[in-house]
């Protein structure tokens, strides 16, 4: 059994919280005491049924305002899969929260209100899904009960959306007509939507195939920690501990250590008291090399047959996440894998109006702005273009005055 991580994009008005609540409720993922609290709450739907949206409301301030203001994580499982939902707010002022939730998602559910069709926010959410390279997209056309479960309404929305998907290079899209309020096609197939022959949302989530990049030429191991017991019996033990971010390593693989460029061969792979034949993407291991070379935290071990780019002048997409705007005169920190170095934003190429997808040349990066920049780092980063290998292409910017994470970078290419 594996884990599927997905994000739900949409606003309160689209019935996003109700959809998640319905998914949890109908798949029996709600426990008795939570259910008791739910029944005790005085928030009800107009027809007197329980308001399932309450299940996903986290913080007190949010309960008071009735809105989701931060990413909340929810867990449930079926016999086929385990699920982690990143429930992100959909409003434009919370773009950074959605970017955060999207960064680890394998799949995105984008909600469209059947009465309103494709709207500005649909474009925005799709742009973010494309920017963050989420593998799979589900368009849940919700509130079908409010449009008499009309097939024409659904088909028109599909046609409209395909234009956006084409523009944004989103290739893997599944469309499902649903009513979260009534439970149509969420967990159980709908009898009211007999013209729809596809899977219910849950059935789709259970079966959709998600791939991990295990190609050996993409093998990347950012070194987190050097294990050196220095005891009498383990005098020469020197293991490099880290989590394989992409690709796979085997004993006898020729590897290169970056940024130094030293090469060696893997002599042993350990996972505590076992020695797996192969270290696959996602595994936390300790590797040993044949040669005694100087390696420390922040270095990355890669397969010599497929080295990443090594550069200190890099073009990247940037999402700004702080209320203090970007200041090109400041020195920031950039954290990429296990390496943190100083950096400057050397150039702002353009911004994107994420509602219309038009380029904008206003030179001012404020909270939630997204665009393209060139960064200059104090030491070179060993990265892959985010669009090709997101596990080694994402980085964050930290304001060294406040220590807060202020930007997300999707690295594109060296421009040295």
């Amino acid at each position, binding site marked *: *059994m*594996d*884990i599927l991580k997905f994000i739900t994009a949409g606003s309160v008005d689209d019935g996003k919280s109700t959809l998640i609540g319905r998914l949890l409720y109908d798949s029996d993922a709600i*426990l*008795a*005491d*939570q259910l008791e609290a739910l029944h005790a709450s005085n928030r009800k739907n107009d027809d007197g049924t329980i308001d399932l949206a309450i299940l996903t409301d*986290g*913080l007190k*301030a949010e*309960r008071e305002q009735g809105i989701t203001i*931060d*990413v*909340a*994580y*929810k*867990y449930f*499982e079926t016999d*086929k899969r*385990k699920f*982690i939902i990143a429930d992100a707010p959909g409003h434009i002022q919370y773009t950074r*929260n959605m*970017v955060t939730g999207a*960064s*680890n998602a394998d799949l995105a559910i984008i909600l469209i209100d059947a009465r309103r069709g494709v709207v500005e926010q649909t474009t925005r959410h799709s742009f973010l899904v494309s920017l963050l390279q989420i593998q799979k997209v589900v368009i849940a056309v919700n509130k079908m009960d409010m449009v008499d479960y009309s097939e024409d309404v659904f088909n028109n929305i599909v046609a409209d959306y395909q234009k956006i998907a084409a523009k944004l290079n989103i290739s893997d899209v599944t469309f499902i007509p649903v009513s979260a309020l009534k439970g149509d096609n969420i967990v159980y197939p709908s009898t009211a939507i007999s013209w729809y022959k596809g899977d219910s949302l849950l059935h789709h989530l259970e*079966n959709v*195939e*998600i*791939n991990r990049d295990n190609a050996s030429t993409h093998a990347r191991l950012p070194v*987190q*920690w050097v294990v050196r*017991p220095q*005891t009498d019996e383990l005098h020469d*033990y020197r293991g490099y*501990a*880290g*989590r394989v*971010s992409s690709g796979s390593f085997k004993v006898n693989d020729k590897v290169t250590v970056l940024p130094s460029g030293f090469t060696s061969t893997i002599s042993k792979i350990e*996972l*505590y*008291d076992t020695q797996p034949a192969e270290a*696959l993407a*996602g*595994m*936390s291991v300790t590797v040993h090399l044949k040669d005694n070379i100087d390696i420390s*935290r922040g270095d990355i071990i890669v397969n010599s047959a497929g080295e990443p780019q090594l550069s200190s002048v890099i073009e990247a997409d940037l999402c700004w*996440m702080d209320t203090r705007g970007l200041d090109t005169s400041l020195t920031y920190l950039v*954290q990429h*894998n*296990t390496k*943190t170095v100083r950096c400057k934003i050397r150039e702002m190429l353009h911004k994107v109006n994420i509602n219309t997808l038009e380029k904008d040349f206003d030179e001012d990066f404020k909270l939630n702005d997204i665009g393209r920049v060139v960064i200059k780092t104090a030491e070179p980063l060993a990265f892959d273009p985010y669009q090709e290998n*997101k596990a080694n292409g*994402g980085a*964050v910017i*930290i304001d*060294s005055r406040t*220590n*807060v*994470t202020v930007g*997300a970078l999707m690295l594109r290419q060296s421009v040295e």
Partner: protein
Amino acid sequence: MSTNRLDYLDELEAEAIYILREVAGQFEKPALLFSGGKDSITLVHLALKAFRPGKFPFPLVHIDTGHNFEETIQYRDEMIARIGEKLIVGHVQDSIDEGKVIEQTGKNASRNALQTFTLLDTIAKNGFDACIGGARRDEEKARAKERIFSVRDEFGQWDPKRQRPELWNIYNGKIHKGENVRVFPISNWTELDVWNYIRRENIPLPTIYFAHQRDCITRNGQLMAASPFLNMDEEDVVERRNVRFRTVGDMTCTAAVESYAFEIDDIISEIADSKISERGARMDDKVSEAAMEERKKGGYF
């Protein structure tokens, strides 16, 4: 279904090991908060996997309310002897003796609230800059929004509105002097995941997790272990019951559940069928809907 992805327990384990190693790599003086409960016992096991054959790059810290299940203390001491790592104990009794906190009185008196002070005091005295804890996001809805690296100010407070964005697997542990970070490596595990992992890895647990006979009283609809730490009066009827505990906390606030689960397999099927979530068995969360959030803001881990 795809075949090139890790099994969920391997995935969760690998993520937790990665987080523990990030703590080791990013902080000067981390600590692992050890309560004697199954979640922190799991953390210790994960730390063995992250750092052996080397030593842990942090001590274990236990905040002792003095109102412990004796089985927990016994387990703790045996475990420390087995793994050969350092243990630091912060005593709530010391905080009371120093006049820093005042013992509660009345029928529902508990030292549970007092341990927040002792924890913050222990962090300050030892200069810890990161404290690893076993909290999980599935426990309670205020925890659903907690970061893996959660920054606390010098008063130990969590500010839900000023959380740092946390993207991919990049954890920003940069802090100012006086601040510290709480780190939750098993954030993405559910209660059942922890149990399945304990079974798979054969991790020993304190005996109170398994069904046993015990003198109990019923209070506020919940079964509490009769003990000298619980203020009892003539209304309290002591009954011998077959129970086990789903969490291990202070004796005055940890409720038992009626159970005949003597083996780990029994527990797993009991939980899988169960209709009460784990924190539902803790009286301290029953106070109000926003109880957990308030306590987190105040520095409770």
